């Protein structure tokens, strides 16, 4: 029958079509597994980018320690964190882009079943990832105070993590560094070329870890001298940086987007938003600091800085600009270096701790190394130190002022040490008092919306989510 023929024909079509292969459900253009080195690379670059960033959306610490002032839009230099959600971007960059990727790398590594040399290499890799995690956590805690730590980075298992006590986090970070130093075994390699700082050199990572432990330990010097001394002395004996070549420095590839932040801001984005402050320029001028021409150019034959935190716009052309070196796309960024460890050892010696040398010697070497780093001469350094010798009676001032000068372009650490050492004495922006200069960053604003009860508990625990609240290690108030 004709009818039946048609029906059958149609049914055949229908069945053919219905049995079409059903698409599977995994994105064919995205990786479901990657080499751990690629995660480590991303975390390393992200960490350096965040520490070094000068974007008003990500990192305004250069403004907080009055290295720089803004030209036309000056609200961030007047401590407006909210308009651009700076704390959200600051914390997300550290947690999401650094610590999370390192956690993922560790998870993959820990799941491997290597033996012998491969197992040693794996252990090195895990330890190095851990060291960078410690670095990032310390930066986060130094900015905010209590932060999610034990409950952080759990994804769907805990989308609203509770905050941990900052002092306890510090204790754990120091313990992790101790363990990592013990683990690292230079007989085997680590990440190789995926490590853009040391090329996978395990011996250097060991020094990096010890230097970081020195920094973290010293942060506790006022609040917990016993723990601080123990950490500093053990870091020293483990072996901190012995010369500038061992420093933790990333040289940008210079190929977009892996370029230095100042190049990116001034050339790629074509903006002229920043000029040096008179806080810095006037102080360097008063010291006749040999680094002044290495940091800045003159305007009409003089070095001119702008009023920090001014309630008025400033014309870019009327002020000194950054020296040419800062505008190079491959200009480096420093995570931690020899100059800094020498300053830390100077302070340790001054406090009477056993670090194998005298405070003044360490101090002199720190200042000299800083001048040399910026391509000044030994003679410059000698003259400078002769004019401005170490003052053991006012050691906090000596260390604080010189460290501030040396940490130029490393404002995250400079802001922490300014809070701890209470030097230099910064200028008070118009209409404010000294205490208004931020002692911490407000918590990420979206935590109120995304993690409300934990945010409330953390705010109460630290004494209020206010930029004037001191961190736990910052027990002295300046002035």
């Amino acid at each position: 029958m004709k009818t039946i023929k048609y029906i059958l024909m149609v049914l055949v079509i229908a069945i053919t079509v219905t049995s079409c292969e059903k698409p599977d459900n995994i994105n064919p253009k995205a990786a479901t597994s990657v080499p751990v080195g690629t995660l480590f690379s991303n975390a390393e670059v992200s960490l350096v980018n965040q520490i070094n960033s000068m974007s008003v959306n990500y990192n305004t610490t250069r403004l907080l320690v009055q290295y720089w002032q803004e030209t036309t839009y000056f609200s961030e230099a007047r401590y407006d964190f909210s308009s651009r959600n700076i704390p959200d971007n600051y914390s997300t960059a550290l947690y999401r882009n650094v610590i999370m990727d390192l956690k993922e790398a560790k998870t993959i590594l820990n799941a491997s079943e290597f033996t012998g040399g491969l197992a040693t290499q794996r252990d090195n890799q895990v330890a190095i990832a851990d060291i960078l995690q410690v670095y990032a956590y310390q930066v986060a805690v130094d900015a905010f105070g209590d932060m999610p730590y034990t409950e952080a980075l759990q994804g769907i298992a805990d989308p609203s993590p509770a905050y941990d006590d900052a002092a306890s986090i510090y204790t754990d970070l120091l313990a992790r560094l101790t363990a990592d130093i013990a683990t690292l075994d230079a007989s085997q390699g680590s990440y190789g070329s995926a490590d853009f700082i040391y090329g996978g050199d395990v011996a250097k990572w060991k020094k990096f870890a010890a230097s970081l432990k020195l920094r973290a330990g010293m942060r506790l010097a006022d609040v917990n001298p016993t723990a601080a001394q123990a950490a500093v002395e053990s870091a020293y004996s483990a072996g901190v940086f012995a010369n500038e070549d061992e420093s933790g420095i990333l040289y940008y590839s210079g190929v977009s987007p892996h370029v230095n932040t100042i190049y990116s801001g001034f050339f790629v984005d074509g903006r002229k938003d920043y000029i040096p402050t008179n806080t810095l320029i006037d102080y360097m001028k008063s010291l006749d600091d040999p680094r002044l021409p290495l940091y800045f150019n003159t305007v009409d034959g003089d070095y001119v800085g702008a009023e920090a935190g001014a309630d008025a716009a400033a014309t870019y052309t009327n002020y000194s600009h950054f020296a040419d070196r800062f505008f190079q796309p491959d200009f480096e960024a420093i995570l931690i270096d020899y100059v800094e460890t020498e300053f830390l050892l100077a302070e340790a010696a001054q406090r009477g701790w056993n670090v194998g040398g005298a405070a003044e010697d360490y101090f002199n070497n720190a200042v000299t190394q800083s001048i040399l780093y910026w391509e000044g001469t030994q003679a410059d350094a000698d003259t400078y130190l002769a004019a401005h010798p170490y003052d053991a009676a006012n050691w906090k001032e000596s260390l604080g002022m010189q460290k501030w000068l040396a940490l130029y372009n490393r404002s995250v650490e400079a802001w922490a040490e300014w809070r701890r050492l209470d030097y230099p004495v910064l200028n008070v922006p118009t209409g404010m008092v000294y205490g208004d200069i931020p002692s911490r960053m407000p918590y990420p604003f979206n935590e109120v919306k995304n993690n409300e009860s934990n945010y409330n508990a953390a705010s109460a625990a630290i004494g209020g989510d206010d930029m004037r609240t001191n961190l736990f290690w910052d027990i002295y108030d300046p002035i």
Partner: protein
Amino acid sequence: MRKFILMLALFAFVGLQGVFAQTSVTGTVTSSDDGGTLPGVSVVVEGTSLGTTTDMDGKFSLSVPADATALVFSFVGMETQTVAFTGQTVVNVVMNASALDLDEFVVTALGISREKKSLGYAVQTLGEEALGEVRASNPVASLSGKASGVKITQPNTMGGSANIVIRGNASITQNNQALFVIDGVPISNVNTSSNKDGWGGYDYGNAASDINPDDIASVSVLKGAAATALYGSRAANGVIEITTKRGTKKDGIGVTINSGVTFNSADHSSMPKWQDKYGEGYGAFYDDPTGYFFYEDMNGDGTPDLVAPTSEDASWGAAFDPNLMVIQWDALDPNKPNYAQATPWVYPENDYHYFFQTGVRYTNNITFEGGDEKGTFRLSYTNNDETGILPNSSIEKHVINFSGSRNLSDKLTVDANITYTNQNATGRYGTGYDGGNVMQSFGQWIGVQVDFQKLEELYLREDGSQLSWNASYVDDLHPIYFDNPYWVRYKNYNDDHRNRIFGYSALNYKLNDWISAKAKVSIDSYTEVQNERIAVGSVDQSKFSSYTRQSQELNYDFMLNFNKNFDNISVTGLVGTNVRRNTVESVYGSTVGGLVVPDLWAISNSVSPVYVSEALRKWGTNSIFANVSFGYNDFVFVDLTDRYDVSSTLPEGDNGFNYYSASTSVLLSELDLFKDMPVLSFLKLRANYAEVGNDAPVYSLYSTYAKGTNWGSNALFSVSSTMLNPNLKPERTKSFEVGLEANFFDNRVRADVAYYNNRSIDQLMPVTVSPLSGYSSIWMNSGEIENKGVELSLTANVMKTDNFNWDINVNWYKNSNEVVRLYQAESGEEVKNIMIMSAWDVSINAVVGEPYGVIRGIDYVYHDNGEPMVNANGYYMMGDDPAANIGSIQPDWNAGLSSRMSYKGFSLNILLDGQKGGDIYSVNTKYGQATGVYEETAGNNVLGNPTRDNIVSLTDGEYSQHFSGGIPLSDAAPNSGGIILPGVKEDGTPNDILVSAGRWGRAFYYRNSPTARYVFDASYIKFRELSFGYTLNKNLVAKTPFNNITFSVIGRNLAILFKNTDHFDPEMSLGSGNAQGIETGAYPTTRSIGFNLKLGI
């Protein structure tokens, strides 16, 4: 297994062939209008529910019982005719158009024509005139105000996307757009624009704008889940079902030419209002003695000259003064004769309004149609050529549509409809907070003294670099923040192209007089290419990017339709199967680190290694569905549907879901009780309940890594910021609706009222979480949202005489929604808020217990008397809560009012539409006030002095411009400047404190203002459409070669009759999507006035 059951079902129906045939009546139905045949006409034996509909050729064949007395012919838009039956075997009928159609048949899901009275759900039908008359370039936008419950938000950009949401947002984060279906073919309405978050990009329009208004015969709006259940999950947001025109049977070939020209211009009432008293600068911060100007010796005469502070993108500068001579931006090019020549410091002859031009759109359509005993065809070609209101903007569109049908035998018909569109656009408008959007500058950041004619003349320098009003400094002409807007339009333009084919081919087979089978394959396939440019010498790093996207959807349908009457009971229904396969493949490539060779627009022209990203997405569903309707005695109708989908996007084993609906319609007017009421001519009660499911977007289950840009030869990978979830399950929507249709006075007044309640649970969405959890968002089944609302439509035939007819139609609807719950965190804590979008200090949120789209930010602090309070310095106090509720994007109600009048050959149609309530946050106003560009920043204060003048105290004398405090009015000298902000002091008395308002950072500064200061009421009434037409009477036409001549004048968006926003159109949208409620860099409303000539041969 399911396939097997389906086969059994099919055979079961085949086996049911019965022999009920009696006298066989055949005939043809034609239209008195043009003599063409009418397909889809309902033919019913009077007093029974026996009936059929005419086929593509207007033919029918019906078995009529011997005792039948009459046949009733009815069709949408035609007067119903009753023909006495006396045993004749051929009944040919000519139908007349009805003045007030009764919509007796409407197109429902899957393109099935149904008797409206039998439907238990709301369907609103719009005729050809709804879209075809005004022929808007985006037909989606022109649905506005024409159907209740359908909220359209218009794009103000050329070719931009219209947001279309029916009965409220049912999904918290996913798609809420209605599904577009053309002749039963679902077509993609994806908005692939890059602009959805308000941070720049272009609005490339929604794909449904490819529909050609000239080809549309009618539009059915299917609103509730019961109406759309047969389409399955993808129709959860309602369906716009479009039926295209078909050829008709006639002698020879009918040709229609429809030609129009439309002029588009900016509606100036929807644009930012500038002050005209002060020029560029941020205040007295610069170098000359007044502090308002740069001070450099430009002409070499040894004394410094006044130079405009060109690097400053604000207007807190020196007061205009025709005697003040200043070297301005246009005199900074050393290659020009006017270099270093000073000109008067005045408001320009040509301000930014000069920038907007009159765009012209030509729309030409030619249609051929015809048909004979065996089949019909229609071929239409439309050319649409449009220029926008911005320089260098145009869209060119070609649409070819062919439809045809042919009877291969008495029982077998083939049928096809195919549309090809080709669209090429150049210079779409940049959007959002981005330099590519010229409105960012015009609405927010500029020196108002800039003359736009000079910008146009001087934008390109001899060496190919640009001259902008915003030069970095007198000797550094590279623009610092803003490109010259002409440079933006002519150098940094984009272009895009879309080629698309959609349509179907179908086979209909009439098994017997009550069962027919249909097999159909439909396709929607398109390729689009989007190229974006930033020229060398722009503020931003130069760049070229190209995005190519191919989208394809295939649907295979097989259906059995049946239609059977038993005494008083009629049964119609269908069973069917659908297989859908979607593929989207795209490649995006861009230069990195800038372009090597200027103006060479190729990705390979990249300084650094190029960036490429690809996507390939494939997904699909397999479905079976069935629908059965019972009618009892033309009094009660019951309709049941069921559909089962298996989706590829959900976890294996948990990827099937069922949905169903039940609806009923009761014709109360058939009851004796109502039959005695002469006023009431028709009364119907309808009710329905439906539960539908929805699947996840493709690739929401298994996490992958995000790729960064290589460092040399090293790859960088990162954990994706969105955590996927392999445990997702289908989301569900439960929907209930009741409605009443009542006609009065011989059907001259018709009312339709509906109430609905939709509850969507287990919503699939990426939930925004604390990034400290390692992810920015996590996919979850979460959340419940309830939409309930009332829809009312009222049509009245106000007057009807032989020559004159006047109809008025009102549509009114109100949707209230509430986010019932979001999700429970592992800790047991209920999450109360999900952020949908944020910009600076404001966010759009889903908050538990609140309507969808709560605007959150810092509020004023209010006194008990309800007024905002100022502090002791006279500035607004700011609430402690950084996320206070300060508004909602949900309107109280929307309404449309239309009037259609005709007198002899003349017709006059008017449409107004409006919205009451709803709020919008204005980024423009925030910055436009802060930069001193807006009108209100340059008025006089209560003392009659300019607000920008320095504050003068009786006790302390004159303060400098930089004084940041305030003084009480009682202490103000008669010549004091400053402004008193509206509000009260902490004691509740009216604010009387003068604060400085003479520079950036003072009374008009956003940091001194709560977010709530920039939230505005989005109510409006718009004069949306007007058309005035004249059809030559037949006697006159007879003297021409034509058989029909119609001339019309048409207008769209003619005026905003009411609004509460000073500087922008409150209907402004960033484009289609959920990110509504934030205005940033809004374009003016485009007003169109056009002329149209339609010729029939």
